[in-house]
């Protein structure tokens, strides 16, 4: 009887710590700054927010609530690790690329850099491997939001996907320099879909 009770308690504890979350809870968990998927740096008036987006999170966002698409979309997105770097100037609420701008030409040079060249200044260090960015998209806000984002995809080894990773961005437009963001990735919850 005693052993049975003990087993019941252990099972109860295990089910609580296993962190199985439904789609909405899962999304909220990833977006919660305290859970380790978001890392921030504020340097010299610029704020950089890096986010590790687990595969399930990316697929959930793509599904847009239609869970029947989940499996096929998961197949499409598998094989890569996804991250986002958002940036904004703390002193202004307009387009970040206008921060400390000298001329109109400089603005277009900045856009050109972020849309075409910044990809080469971002890399991921994971389990001793340096992985360069293979999927890159620069998302402009056109002044609607102070944030501009870089959406990043890295082809990593399947065995390393739950290992700690360091996202490195050599930021040169605002001359902030090398920015490093750590992600533990070892406490991700499991997504449950009914």
């Amino acid at each position, binding site marked *: 009887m005693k052993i049975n009770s003990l087993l019941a308690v252990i099972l109860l504890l295990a089910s609580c710590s296993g962190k199985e979350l439904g789609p909405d809870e899962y999304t909220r968990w990833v977006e919660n700054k305290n859970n380790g998927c978001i890392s921030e740096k504020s340097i010299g008036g610029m704020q950089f927010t890096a986010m590790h987006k687990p595969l399930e999170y990316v697929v959930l966002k793509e599904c847009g609530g239609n869970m029947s698409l989940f499996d096929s979309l998961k197949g499409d997105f598998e094989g890569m690790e996804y991250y986002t770097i958002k940036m904004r100037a703390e002193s202004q609420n307009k387009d970040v690329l206008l921060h400390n701008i000298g001329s109109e030409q400089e603005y277009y040079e900045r856009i050109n850099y972020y849309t075409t060249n910044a990809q080469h200044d971002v890399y991921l260090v994971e389990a001793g491997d340096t992985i360069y960015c293979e999927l890159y998209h620069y998302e402009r806000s056109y002044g609607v939001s102070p944030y501009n984002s870089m959406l990043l995809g890295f082809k990593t080894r399947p065995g390393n996907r739950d290992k700690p990773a360091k996202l490195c961005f050599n930021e040169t437009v605002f*001359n902030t320099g*090398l920015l490093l963001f750590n992600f533990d990735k070892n406490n991700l919850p499991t997504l449950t879909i009914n």
Partner: protein
Amino acid sequence: MAKPDKKTWLIAGAVLLVAAGCFLMYQKLHLKAAYVDQVQLFNAFRLKKVLETEYQKVENLRKQQSDSMALGISLMQQQARGPQQLGYVQQQKEYLAYKQNEFAEMNEQLKMQYNEQIRKQLNQYIKDYALKNKVDFLLGSTGEGDVLFAAERFDVTKELIHYVNTRFEGENK
């Protein structure tokens, strides 16, 4: 044992009030100060080491390029015959001088760019450290008399070096 009377309670309350007041005054008036060896901090900052290595690589590549141009010109000079060839050698020498100047300027620019990056990140982490540890004054010493004397217990150099490097390596505040 007799129960404390009203007077005793009043005295105890007054003592407590005075103690709380003293504590609040102490908190308000007590300023926390610390000092740091700036040279040691700067040299131990990991970004500085990373960029120093990067700078050395670029400088060496440019030097190799200008050295190999100089060697080529000196060989050309030894083999040059007639005014046309000597004129060409002269042109190449001028071009080399132009390139060497350009490299020197580019090296200087790169050094400035890297120094700014180090300064920006270091200043931010120092500020974050002071705010986190509620330090009111953080004095920087270069060992040249800017801080005439400070007791060793106020020296936070090692702690700050550890903090700035962990922050640089990607740890959150």
